[in-house]
């Protein structure tokens, strides 16, 4: 059977499963459409949250980022998991107790203001739309690589499948397809990782293999990797970072951004009880950690594997001849994600860090520039081929990559459509809309959101990569602080919350635009995006635009408390509302009367 047929069976089979689940889990009421009826088992919800959260970026790109950056990029590992601690203790149980359908619902009620609700809707839509573009393009790439269709057609197929289960099933359909998608993606991610760990370290579990002995050299794997990369002029893989302030702020931005992303928060509205919301956050992190503990092992092993393939006798000896390169390199060269250019015309592949500091060594060895460019993203996708695994594993990776992209896209689309139908239409424009009318409005806005997301995926704005910084920046600087103050302070009032959210939102956007271009239009950046130009850049402790979300959040808190202190405290009924969300039972009944 050809590889194409195998891929088709895996992808087609997984899609048929998602659609079958959607038909089984149709949504009949707004409560089922928005929060799956509120009856999802906490362990199942944890699994669905893991699939919801782990996007194409986690599945495809993260291992490549860590491979390239080594210790410095541990920020992604800590940042994208630590947010769940904040969710479990600071947000999820109380918002579950509040018991409504969306994140702007809480902000609008707690700060007794349509203005606050609309600011929250705007933040939610900007953050979620920028995020969904990446998922759709990721799905398109996976399709074009594995199914030999153009990425536009791939996108349309993906959109139709998401449309079927998300529009029909709402949160209920999405929840149970996400559970299935989690199973597909985690199997796809871990099987090749186990094999590569066995090959390199003779250890079955990749996270243990990471700190074990490299079988071939007898040295610890990480020490071997440090040795190989430094002989090629790269920084040591485990080298410490000088600008620790930026590393701390970047990690913090990712953590509070994670906790503030609406599509993650609404997953905790689907469990039956407050106690379940707490457990569920723990289960979500367990399922996420299965991938996040495997990723750094894949990163270091794949990087070492690549370098030892190119330098079979060590980096100080001759590199392999281009004509003898392994088959997987040939396959990936056709996609343009691996590029070779024989600069010194010796027919061999020299891969090294072409910097002035290494120029003398390179010249001594007769090298005339780095000859191989390897895109970070292929590391996970090419892993089964690098490890010589059978064809069905490649089919599994294709289905896994698509599962990661589609599960996140569906969660985002639900967050967007519920903000439109529930907060914008029912909450502001037409409060007397019937239950049936609202359900129809929710389905129509979901359909429109899918069409827009597909169109954006086909015509990605040139700035798609940078906008992820914007999504996390906005979630960190506007949504997270507003939710937290709404629960933990009875004193923060409507004016304070709105000023705080706007101050956080604007300061973060402006700081990002200053370095990455105004509204990301190329060529409009005020300052070149280099560390010396950043805030405090002169001291060597500059704050990168990606790290500013944490600073924006602090600005939000400071402004909200300052403004609230000089204006009237919230009315008594709002203080009672705050009291009620703090207790799983009791004070809640006082509000209902």
């Amino acid at each position, binding site marked *: 059977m050809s590889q194409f047929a195998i891929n088709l069976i895996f992808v087609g089979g997984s899609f048929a499963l998602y659609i079958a689940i959607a038909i089984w889990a149709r949504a009949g009421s707004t409560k089922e459409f928005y929060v799956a009826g509120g009856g999802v088992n906490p362990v199942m919800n944890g699994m669905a949250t893991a699939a919801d959260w782990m996007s194409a970026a986690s599945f495809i790109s993260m291992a490549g980022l860590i491979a390239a950056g080594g210790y410095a990029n541990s920020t992604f590992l800590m940042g994208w*998991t630590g947010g769940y*601690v904040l969710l479990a*203790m600071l947000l999820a149980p109380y918002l579950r107790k509040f018991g409504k359908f969306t994140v702007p619902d809480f902000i609008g009620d707690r700060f007794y203001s349509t203005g606050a609700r609309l600011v929250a809707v705007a933040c939610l839509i900007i953050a979620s739309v920028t995020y969904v573009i990446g998922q759709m393009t990721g799905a398109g790439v996976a399709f074009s690589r594995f199914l030999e269709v153009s990425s536009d057609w791939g996108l349309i197929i993906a959109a139709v499948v998401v449309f079927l289960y998300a529009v029909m099933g709402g949160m209920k359909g999405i929840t149970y397809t996400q559970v299935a998608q989690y199973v597909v993606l985690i199997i796809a991610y871990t099987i090749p990782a186990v094999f590569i760990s066995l090959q390199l370290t003779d250890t079955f579990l990749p996270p243990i293999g990471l700190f074990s002995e490299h079988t071939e050299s007898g040295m*610890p794997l990480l020490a071997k990797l440090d040795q190989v990369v430094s002989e090629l002029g790269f920084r040591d893989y485990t080298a410490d970072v000088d600008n620790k302030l930026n590393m*701390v702020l970047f*990690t913090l931005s990712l953590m509070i951004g994670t906790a503030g992303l609406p599509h993650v928060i609404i997953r905790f509205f689907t469990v039956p009880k407050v*106690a379940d919301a707490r457990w569920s956050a*723990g289960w979500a*992190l367990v399922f996420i*950690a299965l991938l996040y503990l495997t990723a750094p092992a894949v990163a270091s092993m794949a990087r070492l594997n690549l370098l030892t393939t190119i330098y079979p006798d060590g980096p100080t000896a001759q590199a392999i001849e281009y004509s003898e390169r392994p088959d997987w390199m040939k396959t990936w060269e056709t996609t343009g994600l691996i590029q070779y250019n024989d600069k010194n015309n010796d027919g061999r592949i020299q891969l090294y860090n072409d910097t002035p500091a290494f120029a003398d060594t390179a010249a001594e060895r007769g090298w005339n520039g780095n000859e191989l460019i390897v895109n970070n993203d292929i590391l996970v996708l090419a892993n089964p081929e690098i490890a010589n695994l059978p064809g069905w594993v490649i089919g599994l990776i294709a289905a896994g990559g698509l599962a990661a992209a589609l599960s996140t896209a569906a969660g985002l689309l639900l967050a967007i459509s519920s903000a439109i139908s529930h907060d914008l239409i029912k909450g502001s424009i037409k409060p007397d809309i019937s239950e049936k009318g609202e359900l129809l409005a929710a389905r129509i806005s979901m359909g429109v959101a899918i069409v827009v997301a597909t169109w954006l995926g086909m015509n990605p704005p040139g700035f798609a990569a940078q906008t992820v910084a914007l999504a996390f920046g906005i979630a960190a600087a506007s949504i997270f602080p507003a939710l937290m103050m709404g629960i933990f302070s009875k004193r923060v009032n409507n004016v304070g919350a709105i000023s705080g959210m706007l101050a956080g939102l604007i300061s973060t956007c402006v700081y990002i635009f200053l370095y990455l271009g105004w509204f990301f239009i190329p060529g409009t950046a005020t300052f070149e995006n280099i560390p010396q130009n950043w805030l405090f850049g002169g001291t060597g402790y500059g704050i990168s635009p990606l790290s500013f979300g944490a600073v924006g959040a602090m600005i939000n808190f400071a402004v909200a408390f300052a403004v609230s202190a000089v204006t009237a405290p919230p009315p008594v009924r709002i203080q009672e509302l705050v009291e009620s969300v703090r207790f799983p039972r009791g004070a809640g009944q006082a509000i209902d009367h």
Partner: protein
Amino acid sequence: MADHTNNARAYWQANLRLIVGCLVIWALVSYGFGILLRPWLAGIPVGGTDLGFWFAQQGSILTFIALIFFYAWRMNKLDKEFGVDEE
């Protein structure tokens, strides 16, 4: 009534103390051991590198999981002790 209010306040104070305790550990393993204190942990070797690297790539995540389950277990117990749990 006064008793009920005192009870509510005690419950909320207990929750806040628990959160602060957990977040101190949360910050210590990630921002502390994983980033800022790494140079001080450089002398403790772990599989070809040092303890700080281990915390940054594995230890912090494992601690996060333990923290959430500990918090959920403690809080669900406190809910019952203070009689504010759901039926």
